[in-house]
């Protein structure tokens, strides 16, 4: 009877299809994001000096360190190779002024990596963007240091402080676009961020939906509210948030429609905070709030499968 003898046929692998994979990987995606952040980093070093680079490197290093420590404590294999912790570290640094103390920055990366990301189960499981929450915690804890802005091209510890354009409401469009203004490390140069945006689009890491919806909404809302729309999209963190934070895969919707809703929501909340609330800047809060709404957006933007048939809803009274 033994035509088939499973015992002696152990050489060949039997597994479900498909048997080939694309070359895409999480690591490659994160590497693309890091590359896309390089122009903004270069501009930042040009404008704020070498300390911008040191702070960014420090944030990336501590973020990776916290990630490895969490892996060790959770007895999980190391996940620093996927580069997501490095991305979070650099993003957090982009949200800090160049004079920010190193030890405080380490607290920020701890909140981002250990609390927001690893306590929820690591990459893919966090409900909010780690860098955003890190920034918000630092902002609330160390408000003075977080708003200690340096004038562009002023070097040294006794650098002259200046208000960001959002507070002073004065800067010409050219300076704003190039980034010759005060502000956080990575947010000042709209040009550099747009170079990163185009790069991410070209390598197909992100789609334009969220970014365009976010920036477009800020523009239109400002116009309607009687504010200067060009100033509003160039000043502050709108570009940084729209290109690098609101496009984070994990904490934003997965469908095109969901992404547009997410971007529009971010734009509206940003403007409401900027124009009508106590804070000068609302980008981080807007993204955090939309992160929290993401599961609901996902639920209501489910795609109709090709050829799906839904039973007709029973009218009330038909029992």
């Amino acid at each position, binding site marked *: 009877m033994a035509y088939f003898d499973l015992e002696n046929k152990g050489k060949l692998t039997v597994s479900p299809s498909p048997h080939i994979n*694309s070359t895409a990987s999480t690591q*490659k995606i994160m590497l693309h994001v890091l590359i896309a952040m390089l122009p903004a980093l270069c501009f930042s070093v040009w404008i704020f000096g070498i300390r911008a680079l040191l702070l960014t490197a420090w944030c990336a290093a501590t973020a990776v360190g916290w990630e490895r420590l969490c892996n060790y404590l959770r007895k999980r294999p190391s996940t620093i190779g996927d580069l997501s912790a490095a991305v979070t570290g650099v993003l957090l640094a982009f949200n800090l002024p160049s004079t920010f103390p190193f030890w405080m920055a380490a607290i920020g990366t701890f909140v981002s990596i250990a609390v927001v990301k690893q306590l929820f189960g690591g990459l893919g499981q966090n409900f909010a963007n780690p860098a955003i929450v890190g920034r918000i915690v630092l902002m609330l804890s160390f408000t003075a240091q977080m708003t200690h802005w340096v004038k562009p091209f002023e070097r040294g510890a006794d650098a002259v402080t200046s208000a960001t354009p959002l507070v002073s409401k004065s800067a010409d469009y050219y300076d704003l676009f190039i980034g010759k203004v005060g502000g956080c490390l990575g947010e000042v140069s709209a040009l550099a961020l747009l170079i990163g945006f185009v790069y991410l689009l070209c390598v197909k890491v992100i789609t334009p939906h969220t970014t365009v919806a976010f920036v477009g909404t800020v523009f239109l809302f400002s116009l309607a509210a009687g504010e200067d729309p060009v100033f509003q999209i160039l000043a502050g963190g709108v570009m940084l948030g729209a290109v690098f934070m609101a496009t984070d895969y994990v904490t934003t919707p997965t469908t095109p429609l969901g992404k547009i809703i997410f971007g529009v929501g971010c734009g509206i909340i940003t403007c409401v905070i900027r124009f009508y609330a106590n804070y000068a800047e609302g980008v981080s809060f807007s993204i955090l709030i939309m992160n929290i709404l993401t599961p609901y957006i996902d639920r209501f933007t489910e795609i109709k499968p090709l050829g799906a048939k839904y039973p007709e809803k029973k009218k009330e009274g038909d029992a």
Partner: protein
Amino acid sequence: MRSRGVLLPHFKGTQDTETVTLPLPKKVTIPMSMGMGAPCEPLVKKGDTVTVGQKIGDTDKFMSAPVHSSVSGTVTAVDDHLLSNGRLCKAVVIETDGEQTVCPDIKPPEVSDKASFCKAVRESGCVGLGGAGFPTHVKLNYNEDKRHVDCLVINAAECEPYITSDCRTMTEEPDSAVDGIRQVMKYLNIENAYVGIEDNKPEAIRIMTEKTSGDSNIHIVKLRSSYPQGAEKVMAFNTTGRVIAEGELPSDQGIIVMNISTAAFISHYLKTGMPLVERRLTVDGDVVKKPLNVKAPIGTPVSELLRFAEADIDSAKKILMGGPMMGICIYDPDTPMIKVNNAILAFSEKAVKAQAQTNCIRCGRCISVCPLKLMPCRFEKAFDAKDKDTLRRLRVNLCMNCGACSFVCPAKRRLAEKNQLAKELIRT
């Protein structure tokens, strides 16, 4: 709107090589189930002498096609055979005598109308040669009262990597292929035929366009080479714009979808009366030294095909029936090839090494490539939570296991596999 899909590497190295005929194997094993539907009952017993084309298995069930001997020789056993789906069926083992004596009953069938055409197709043992193996006569015997079928969609996409057997059919036997299309259209009163061919087969497109230049109702449709262009619903949608909805057969939308090699076989059968006893298939893969297209009798051991293509069977880690996206692994190189096999692929460990899974990063690539617009990453989470309501709402039952989602996943999640488990979960 065109359906989405994923761009795969093609690896169609055998596209321009002439088909060769396999030297007669010493022994063939012909399973009684070689496609969808009920298995046949063996009509022969140990010790019987059989001839080429002789019917050796049949059933009275409608959803099935009879089985014929592919060689002449002596039946040495009628044994149990383990199918790839885990079920058992009978298989007839025949030792060949090298004569290839043709069965004296073989003569062209008398066909005059739809009923006799369907009957002849059934007797030919024809099943869909593209891979799924749906009995062709069942497909043709649709209920005419329900809806008039006005479109014949000929599937010549051949979207899986490596496989070139349909392409070779079109370049080597274009007359049979076109004649088969005409015959089906004639007997079923179908107005239009659409032949969908992927644009990575320019030679086949050229030849088919030339051969159908006189037929105003046969249209050659050039399709983008994206996977899974050859899936039934995708093919029907991209050629006719009609959506075959949940639970529907193509005929409910007025369509019959048929593989090009099936059409070529039907033409061949109507002329000669020789049932489906051999087929063309691609033998390729990284351990195969001489990749080729070969015509081989049904039931030939896979190992024999691989040896003919000078494959190093000992270093093969995976042997597939079909393409790398949907093909089925075999555990034994001596497993016989069957009617639906359009390719035998053998890969070394290096080529098919499973990569470690990491966490889903919700990038949405699986959603954007799904040809049926499903949401595989959502299925996975719902399946892990045993959330049947969500699985039903998101229609996991529509998944056809094309594997595009698993292919593109940067976290190497085995999404297609989970989808099949999820389909099983909601069935209970």
